[in-house]
């Protein structure tokens, strides 16, 4: 088993509240990713679950047992650090065997366990080498091996891939996903890289300024962000935000006006919206050349040709933020020349004045899965 419950978990550094009453349930065997910008408290939360940082108030429960006061080893967790934290004077074998040596496991059993971990991680040929001779990816695999041999209830990963180059990161993402399938263990993974979060997680927890902004499956966060923060954080390039005014709200959706054009967005309305300023969100990959429910012209100042896609940046009148469109790789556009663009009402998101989303009327099953391949890094 490996069920984790966080009940009103708070963390203070002096009077500064780093984590503001986190409530979360991580089910057995789930791969949960904590994601958020730097300083949002995601690593602190992971370290508190590990037992490396004290919890100020609230309960950390593992399999129904309160573990706040237990040392890491008694919590049934294993942790993989961002910086690998390998022991440089020990061989790969001894590094992986370290936790087993601590618990004084008989040599024969220890050897079998280390060799099994090495087989899973393709490190059999490296067992007698020291970490200094290994590549970044191999070092991180050794660190994962050290976690595997303990057969923990919960694996904790603290940005384990952020020190690797892009190609290796992609490989390791696949390996970690395979490992999760193979071990069927609960894994909690901290990252600031949304691609890692989107590709590996069963469920993503988006943290912002010490609070959970939204919890959900990757597609859910992408298509139904609960607020402007999540909408902006998930998706690359960021979602475009346009100021609009609510004209009407009915069964068909919410009608808004943007620079003289009216468009009805299929979202759930709420009383008192009419006349209020709202924010319309549209992802760059949902902008097309030509006319649509909402049409306008832009003059791109910068165009990035990425092969598969073309990313165009333009400034809209009256808005300081760059407006970004992700178009097909062969899009016939040029910098400083007028381009007509259109946005379909069904692709739009709508947020109220406090940044909370009006619920989109889209079924996740209807959504083109191919869209998720867009972005990436």
């Amino acid at each position, binding site marked *: 088993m490996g069920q984790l419950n966080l009940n009103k978990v708070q963390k203070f550094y002096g009077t500064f509240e780093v984590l503001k009453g986190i409530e979360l349930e991580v089910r057995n065997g789930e791969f949960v990713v904590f994601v958020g910008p730097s300083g949002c408290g995601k690593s602190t939360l992971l370290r508190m679950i590990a037992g490396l940082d004290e919890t100020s108030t609230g309960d950390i429960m593992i399999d129904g047992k309160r573990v706040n006061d237990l040392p890491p080893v008694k919590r049934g967790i294993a942790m993989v*650090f961002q910086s690998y934290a390998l022991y440089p004077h020990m061989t790969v074998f001894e590094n992986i065997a370290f936790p087993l040596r601590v618990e004084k496991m008989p040599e024969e059993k220890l050897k079998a366990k280390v060799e099994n971990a090495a087989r899973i991680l393709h490190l059999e040929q490296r067992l007698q080498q020291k970490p200094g001779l290994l590549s970044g990816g191999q070092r991180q695999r050794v660190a994962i091996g050290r976690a595997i041999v303990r057969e923990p209830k919960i694996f904790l990963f603290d940005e384990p891939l952020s020190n690797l180059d892009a190609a290796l990161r992609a490989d390791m993402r696949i390996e970690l996903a395979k490992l999760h399938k193979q071990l069927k263990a609960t894994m909690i993974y901290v990252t600031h890289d949304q691609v890692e979060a989107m590709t590996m997680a069963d469920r993503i927890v988006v943290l912002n300024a010490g609070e959970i902004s939204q919890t959900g499956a990757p597609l859910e966060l992408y298509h139904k962000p609960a607020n402007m923060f999540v909408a902006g954080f998930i998706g690359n390039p960021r979602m475009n935000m346009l100021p609009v005014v609510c004209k009407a709200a009915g069964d068909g959706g919410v009608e808004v006006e943007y620079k003289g054009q009216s468009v009805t967005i299929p979202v759930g309305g709420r009383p008192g919206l009419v006349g209020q300023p709202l924010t319309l969100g549209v992802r760059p990959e949902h902008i097309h050349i030509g006319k649509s429910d909402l049409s306008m012209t832009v003059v791109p100042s910068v165009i990035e040709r990425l092969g598969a896609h073309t990313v165009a940046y333009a400034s809209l009148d009256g808005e300081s933020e760059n407006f970004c469109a992700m178009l097909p790789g062969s899009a016939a556009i040029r910098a400083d020349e007028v381009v007509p663009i259109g946005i379909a009402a069904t692709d739009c998101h709508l947020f109220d004045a406090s940044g909370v989303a009006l619920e989109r009327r889209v079924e996740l099953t209807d959504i083109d899965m191919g869209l998720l391949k867009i972005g990436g890094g």
Partner: protein
Amino acid sequence: MSTQPAMINRYRWYELLGIYAGIFAFLTFILAPFVEGFLVSLKPLSQLFSSPYRFIPQNGSFEAYRTMWVSVPGFARYIFNSFFISTIVTAVVLMLVVPAAYAFARFKFKGSGQLLGAFLAVNMFSGAVLLIPLFRLMRTFGVLNTYFAIIVPGVAFLIPSAIWLLRTYMMRIPRELDEAAFVDGASHFYTLRRVILPIAMPGITVVAITTFIGSYAQQFIYALTFNSKTEYAPLPVGLFAYFGRQEVIWNELMAASFVGIAPAMIVIFFLQRYLVSGLTAGAVKQ
């Protein structure tokens, strides 16, 4: 097209000449007394006061290295004492300083900063200032004229700088290594022994060498103050035996000096192989 590598020929010839001239002058200043001392040890006594003075010995020989043992029959004992005292002082200092430095490097506890400051303050005292109180202490405990009387003050005076040195070294060892060991169930002592100690070996070696040399050098003052027996006297006291009433046997004194420091040189020679850098390579991504 220029293919000149960036890092080669950083200096012009006259700059290099200046650098080497500076190094030569510095080395001459440092080594000249040793060279002169060695040349004196090769000269017969009669040549030492010849006029004009000759630096290079005529008919030089190693005769003084033989006769020094005859002139001062107990000289081997002095060497043993120095070596023994320094070894014990070094061992005790390391035993106390390694866990202390680890604690100062890793744990936050009340008064740690003040304590470190106090250590530094103790080092600012001249040893001579404390000789009389120490003498009274030793007499009260009845340990005058024992090895104990020379070892204990040596340890006490060498610990502060050793703690500072090793603490600084240990602070450079990534904290994640301790945390990884802690998560894996290792106690602080186990982590220190199996993880930190091997990585800190170069730092510990530096502390061992400086403590050994420090002890070798400072025994003199304690030995003269707290000890009057030949059997516990270290090398610097022994060297005084070559100062006769009528004359100083300079060539034997110099020979004895070189023989006396030989054990320390051998120890340092063997210890320096632990001074390899880069031991933490591959520990964490820098």
